[in-house]
């Protein structure tokens, strides 16, 4: 991957160039525009490297989308590399008759419930962490920081034990609860980050009004943490939507199957029906893709678990 090395140089150059022109450097768009009028050599290597990565990312996606609009026969005769000669959505509709509708609904239920639990628990938690003066709150915050280090894989065996003892094996609730629990540390961290940006003066102003804790929370803290809230919603929704290990170990039957498990089973049972399989992959991603298109910023922040700033 050596050819890509110089990719990174472009930005400093454009910035530097503006300096030589004696203008103040700003982070704003004009930088780009100015670049086109200066004579400096464009960074061909960077462009080349970027195109290489583009190819690496786009190629599998191209094969995937191409395969899903072909019939199985056409795909197996022409191979994955050829351009599709026909167009049909039957692979998609067929997936739905194969049970993907139900998996979709199950995944939606899991995702919705996980998000709901997170929204119910995390804002009061974060509020308490930043505003409470009790030692307990500090300890609780430490507990969550510790929790960041626990991978789900590590506790899957006892989780299986606890969930089966609780009679929740093969029940969506049994998937929802641990999934939500494992979202908490990151969400707590994100939201405390956001809430700390609320200035003391605002709390002071509420105090002058004689506001109760509850009013402070609902009228000041929550509205001003919208960015962070959006981030934790997206973050926990993604965790739930893409979760695999908990459903794999804690569910069994067709009634409780989620999308990721459905994909896995589809692959083990009809792996050679590549168009149908890939259509299922696309279907499982559509909701995330929609969010990406319409709320890209919140999604990216949710992905990164970065505070909504």
């Amino acid at each position, binding site marked *: *991957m050596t050819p*890509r090395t*110089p*990719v*990174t*140089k*472009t930005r*400093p*150059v454009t*910035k*530097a*160039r503006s*300096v*030589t022109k004696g203008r103040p*450097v700003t*982070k704003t768009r004009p930088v780009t525009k100015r670049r086109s009028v200066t004579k400096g050599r464009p*960074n061909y290597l960077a462009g080349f490297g*970027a195109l290489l990565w583009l190819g690496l*990312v786009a190629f599998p996606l191209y094969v995937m989308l191409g*395969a899903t609009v072909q019939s199985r026969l056409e795909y197996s005769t022409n191979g994955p*590399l050829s351009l599709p000669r026909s167009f049909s959505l039957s692979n998609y509709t067929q997936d739905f008759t194969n049970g993907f509708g139900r998996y979709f609904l199950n995944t939606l239920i899991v995702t919705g419930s996980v998000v709901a639990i997170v929204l119910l628990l995390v804002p*009061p938690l974060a509020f*308490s962490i*930043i*505003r409470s*003066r009790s030692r*307990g*709150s500090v300890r*609780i915050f430490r*507990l969550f920081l510790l*929790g960041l*280090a*626990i*991978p789900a*894989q590590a*506790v899957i*065996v*006892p989780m*299986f*034990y*606890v969930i089966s003892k609780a009679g929740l094996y093969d029940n969506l609730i049994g998937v929802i*609860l641990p999934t*939500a*629990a494992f979202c*908490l*540390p*990151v969400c707590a961290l994100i939201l405390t*980050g956001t809430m700390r940006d609320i200035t003391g003066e605002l*709390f*002071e102003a509420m105090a002058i009004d004689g506001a109760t804790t509850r009013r402070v929370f609902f009228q000041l803290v929550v509205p001003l943490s919208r960015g962070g809230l959006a981030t934790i919603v997206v973050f926990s929704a993604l965790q739930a939507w*893409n979760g695999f290990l908990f459903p794999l170990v804690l569910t069994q039957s067709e009634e409780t199957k989620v999308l990721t498990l459905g994909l896995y089973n589809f692959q083990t049972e009809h792996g*050679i029906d*590549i168009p149908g399989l*890939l259509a299922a992959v696309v279907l*499982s*991603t559509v909701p995330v893709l929609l969010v*990406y298109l319409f709320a890209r910023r919140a999604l990216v922040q949710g992905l*990164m678990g*970065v*505070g909504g700033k």
Partner: protein
Amino acid sequence: MVALTTPVKSEGQRQRPRADRGPSGHTVARPGIGWALPAALFFTLFAIVPLVLVAVLSFASWNGLEAPRFAGLDNWTGLLHDPVMIKSLWLSVLLTGLGVVTQTPLSILLGVWAAGRQRNRAVLSAIFFVPLLLSATAISVLWRALLDPNFGVPAQARWLFGDGNLLGSRTGAISVLVLVATWQFTPFHALIYQGAARAVPEVLYQAAAIDGAGRVRRFFHITLPQLRNSIITSVILMVVGGLTTFDTVLILTQGGPGTDTSISAYYMYQKAFREFDFGQGSAIALLLVVVATVISLIVVRISGYDKMAGTKEGM
């Protein structure tokens, strides 16, 4: 999936006792610990208790049929004498190491490139980050289909893939796992670097430009040192993520051929849920937590990261 968070602001700011009365003399309403308890209890029940249980179970013999029995150190000595376990640890380290080595340079370059504010970069970046949207399951399924020796890409590109025995040979299977991890996680780490690169103060570049530094020098002398914290964060996330890789192995190789890709996290699953030896499975799980934590701590120590004000955490 991994997560990264903003720096936690210095503890002092939070802990400094504040008067309940503000400057204006009015009582400031503060939440009690009760606000935090539901979340804390919930988390304790579903994360801390299982973590304690995993430690307990690692000293027990349990096949899921009868009640767990205390087994002393049997599971641990068993693991010590299990050649597959030793191999799996080595494989975990190998795959993690290869992941760090391939993904780090790629994601730094990509991140710094994407930090540029040119319009074309914004558009291309949007495509670059698409792998982030797919679940690990979807990605594994996609690559398994693409790499099928008889019905996938190798069948049409014999000049490149030969007989297409990618997942059936040791080197092939390991390469595929590394490649898929790169495809899957590079965009994520690039995002970290993009954010960090945008935060590099302009004035540094201005100074360098006045000194007549070229692109390469500016990259190595300004950008890279400024990305130091991000590199540490990103490497820790890669290490923890790499050691706990599971979905991709299960779907792409099932630990095969033979045990050639049975990394520890997969071996744990196999012991627990294919062989129903939950005791040994727990012992492996505990070992994984310890190894991941120790490696993270070492990285933090070596880098002197812990002496900095902000802390970043990942899971």
